[in-house]
Structures are given as structure tokens and as C-alpha cells.
């Protein structure tokens, strides 16, 4: 399941809700998840807020293609991708990605793959509010070192 969300969401509550709804209780042994939160600093500057823009239509389509690709490459029972858009405050969740599988290797690797693809390819753009001023974030740092 993928979803674009335009107001604050509780990542742990969403994870719990979705996990409860899975029909395969007892079938999955592994749940790997990642939550990205808005930090109060970036590139050495204090950040006070953020606006997250997306491309309605293409963004949902791209997130679905990430979920489909993960399901092709690993043995997964379910995946979940949620992403905030609009105005975001410090400390709020921006993204939640989760994968359920019978075994942990599949869950871990699928979860990380989905986050890396999302960061490098999904159409989202961050504009940070500084004090004073604002700036578009220029690019994401690679997630593999």
C-alpha cells in the first residue's frame, strides 16, 4: 500500500494499524521499517520548517513502482510506503517505509531498497525555512557508504 499524506501522521500508529490488518498473521516473521523525521538542522544551518512539494499523479505512480519492484526482488508478504507533503514542522514524520516477510533478510533488504529508490528517484522536493529566509534542498545524500 502506498499513500501521500497532507497532514501530520503518527508512524507507529500507522504501522500498528497496517500490521493488524494483515491477513497473514503467523505467516510473517519479520517486519523492517524506516521512519524519516524532519530535523532541526541541515548542511550546518538551523531549519525551522519545511514545505514538501510533489507531482500529483507521477509521485503516486513512482511509489507504486517502488513497491512493485521490491515485491519482485524479494519474498515479501506486504509493503507500506507513506509520505508527507505540504507544510511540515520540526520533529514530524516525513516518510514511513515498511516490509513484512517470513525472513529478516528479505524484510531488511526490501525496506532499505525502497528508501534508497524513494530518496533518489521519487518526485518530491523540499524547501526549507531558515531564520531568516528559505532555500530549496539541492539533493539527497547517498544512503550507502
Amino acid at each position: 500500500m502506498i499513500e501521500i499524506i497532507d497532514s501530520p501522521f503518527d508512524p507507529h500508529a500507522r504501522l500498528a494499524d497496517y500490521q493488524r490488518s494483515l491477513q497473514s498473521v503467523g505467516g510473517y516473521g519479520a517486519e523492517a521499517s524506516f521512519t524519516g523525521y524532519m530535523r532541526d538542522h541541515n548542511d550546518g544551518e538551523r531549519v525551522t520548517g519545511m514545505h514538501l512539494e510533489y507531482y500529483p499523479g507521477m509521485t503516486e505512480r513512482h511509489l507504486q513502482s517502488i513497491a512493485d519492484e521490491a515485491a519482485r526482488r524479494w519474498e515479501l508478504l506486504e509493503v507500506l510506503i507513506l509520505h508527507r507533503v505540504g507544510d511540515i514542522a520540526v520533529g514530524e514524520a516525513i516518510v514511513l517505509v515498511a516490509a513484512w516477510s517470513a525472513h529478516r533478510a528479505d524484510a531488511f533488504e526490501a525496506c532499505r531498497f525502497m528508501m534508497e529508490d524513494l530518496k533518489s528517484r521519487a518526485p518530491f522536493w523540499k524547501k526549507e525555512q531558515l531564520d531568516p529566509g528559505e532555500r530549496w534542498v539541492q539533493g539527497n545524500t547517498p544512503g550507502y557508504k
Partner: protein
Amino acid sequence: MSIQVKFFASLRDELGRDSAEIEDAGDMKVVDIWQQVAGNQPFSGNILAAVNMEYAQADSPVRDGDEVAFFPPVTGG
């Protein structure tokens, strides 16, 4: 019909508009669309393009009725 063009994020700010509509001249590629909407600004590696909501390259074909989008590197997550 015609070709709908959309701009996002910092690229929209730079171009000063969020969309454009251009006439299909036949046998067009993404880079041709870019030159019509951006004038002298080169189509560099810092500009990404999509045709009908799928990533495309400078030489990807564009047909009448297509939606073409230009945007800077993505920064979600």
C-alpha cells in the same frame, strides 16, 4: 490537441511559471520542448524530465497530447 508542460520546485521559481502549453510541431523530442519553454538555458544534468509521468531522456519522443514535466533533482524522504 497540444503538449502540456509542467515545472516543479526551484525550476518553476526560476522560470517564473508552473506550466506552459505548446503546439505539437511533429517529430519532437524532450529537448525540443525544453528549448521552446526555457530559451537559452541549456538542458543540463541538473534538470530531470518526465513524459506522461514516466522519467524520460533528452532524446525521448514527445507526441501530441503528451504531458511533459521538468524538475530539479528530487529531495524527498
